[in-house]
């Protein structure tokens, strides 16, 4: 049996299936990216693995043990960082270490926290509070906190979505380096196929909801360390990228009922508002004298 296993998992909110027939097996040390649209149920999926939600049917097992509640064996990095605002970088991380390794000597806990702060290159900012940090730095704290608990599996829930393109690229590089150093099992949830392909061993699309389910899994066989520029030459990269994007976009279109509607676009020209409107009488609109009539597919 695989390290992390989801079997026929269904999750229902109210009358709707959010997730339907989710089957997923992840091996130890594997980096898997799950890519999907906003609102498709990606976060629900990660919450099921985290134990923050229970499935309505089916099972979620880690190391052959069923997941029934959250625990320190699964480290989570949330999109909104979830740091305690009144604690410094160091204190935020120490808090997690202190909870998980209760019987360690204080000096050891301290050393352990420092090690992970250094891993995400935040040692110069260790005394700062979250509000003194940029978004990218906050997310690094969040990553360090999750890793410091030495979880068996790291769950990343769109960790880089709130960041600008440049910071996102820098943090992707950093995640990639950290993963190379630790070889932890990672599940990354993202809406960006490029991010998934760049970081993961395997990328799996989640179809557009409701009743979202996992699509075929694409193996990313690009040697590491990966270079953002060089992979543009890699035919394998181009192929996966095309297939994943196409699968995602198609999964959405299939769900839309489409009706056709006849629409008329009047052929009138806009008026120049810099000229004063005529005081008396109504002038007529300028016409291009071609009535555009077309049928449009309505989604």
């Amino acid at each position: 049996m695989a390290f992390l296993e989801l079997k026929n998992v269904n999750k229902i909110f109210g009358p709707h299936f959010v997730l339907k027939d989710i089957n997923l097996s992840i091996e130890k040390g594997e980096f898997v990216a799950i890519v999907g649209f906003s609102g498709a149920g990606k976060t629900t999926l990660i919450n099921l693995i985290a134990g923050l939600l229970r499935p309505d049917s089916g099972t979620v097992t880690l190391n052959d043990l069923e997941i029934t509640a959250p625990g320190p064996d699964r480290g989570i990095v949330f999109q909104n960082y979830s740091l305690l605002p009144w604690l410094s970088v160091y204190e935020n991380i120490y808090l997690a270490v202190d909870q998980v390794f209760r019987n360690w000597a204080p000096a050891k806990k301290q050393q352990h926290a420092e090690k992970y702060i250094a891993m995400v290159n935040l040692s110069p900012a260790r005394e700062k509070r979250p509000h003194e940090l940029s978004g990218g730095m906050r997310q690094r704290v969040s990553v360090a906190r999750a890793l410091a608990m030495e979880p068996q599996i790291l769950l990343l829930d769109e960790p880089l979505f709130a960041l600008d393109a440049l910071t996102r690229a820098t943090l992707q590089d950093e995640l990639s380096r950290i993963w190379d150093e630790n070889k932890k099992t990672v599940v990354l949830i993202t809406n960006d196929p490029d991010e998934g392909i760049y970081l993961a061993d395997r990328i799996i699309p989640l179809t557009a909801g409701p009743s979202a389910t996992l699509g075929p899994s694409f193996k990313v066989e690009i040697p590491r360390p990966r270079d953002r520029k060089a992979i543009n030459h890699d035919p394998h990269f181009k192929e996966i990228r095309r297939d994943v994007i196409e699968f995602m976009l198609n999964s959405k279109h299939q769900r839309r009922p489409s009706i056709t509607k006849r629409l008329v676009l009047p052929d009138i020209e806009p008026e120049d508002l810099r000229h004063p409107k005529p005081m008396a009488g109504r002038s007529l609109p300028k016409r291009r004298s071609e009535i555009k009539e077309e049928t449009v597919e309505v989604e």
Partner: protein
Amino acid sequence: MSYVELSNLTKIYPTSKGPAVIVKDFNLRIAKGEFVTLIGHSGCGKSTVLSMLAGLNDITGGGIILAGKELDGPGPDRGVVFQSPCLLPWITAFENVMLGIDQVFYTAGKQERREIAEYYLTVVGLGDAMHKKPAQLSQGMRQRVGIARAFALHPKMLLLDEPFGMLDSLTRYELQQVLIQLWRKNKITALMVTHDVDEALFLSDRVVCMTNGPEAEVGEILDVNFQRPRERKAVMEHPDYYKLREHLITFLEERAHKPLPARTSNAGPLPAPAAPKQPEPSHASPSQTKRETVNA
């Protein structure tokens, strides 16, 4: 003469430390029906150029000519799509679009004006949702309203300021498709600002790379000659696509590692975590420190 001409466009803000030159001698000519994209980093001044073209920002030096007339202030002859669509929350999507139409097509009858709004809202995929208020629409749907609103006025020029920057990547792909389909029908001259390389390549005829500010100007211009009408799949399979993509990524990356001077970097409300100010930056490698400054 070109349809749109930006000549020696300059923007200077007075500051307590003396004048800050954001954009200097920016020259660009755009042909009628051309789709041009400005690409560059946050804070490089690309949005400043766009907002001067929109008439929303005063021009310090130089000038802009659109269809033979020098621009002076904002007007409905330029349709703007903002990053966040700025819809009035108390009226429906339809009424939001009607606001501009009522102004610009005041000579037309009510029925015809409504038809224009219905047409554009339907074409952008809001046939069923046009009578909802913005709060009932998703972020992507709101941006569709923003696109419909801009096209409905039949502007001479379309200005797009990171139109899909706030959307997730997949929704972004969908809306690019919506935009390109509408644009294909009307061939409105367009200028877009973005830092998404794929978006720039898929939509534009030319990509203008801007150098980093201050004193930002045109760095280099890339011709994008994929056949139109474009289909994403065909574009992505074009032998030149990944060459151009790599070229643009390299351009942006090279610029990324040059720290921006504090004056022009548009740091948010957060204080810049400038590593050099730290008493003991010993744990960070030099290259890391440098990157941090950019991240701020």
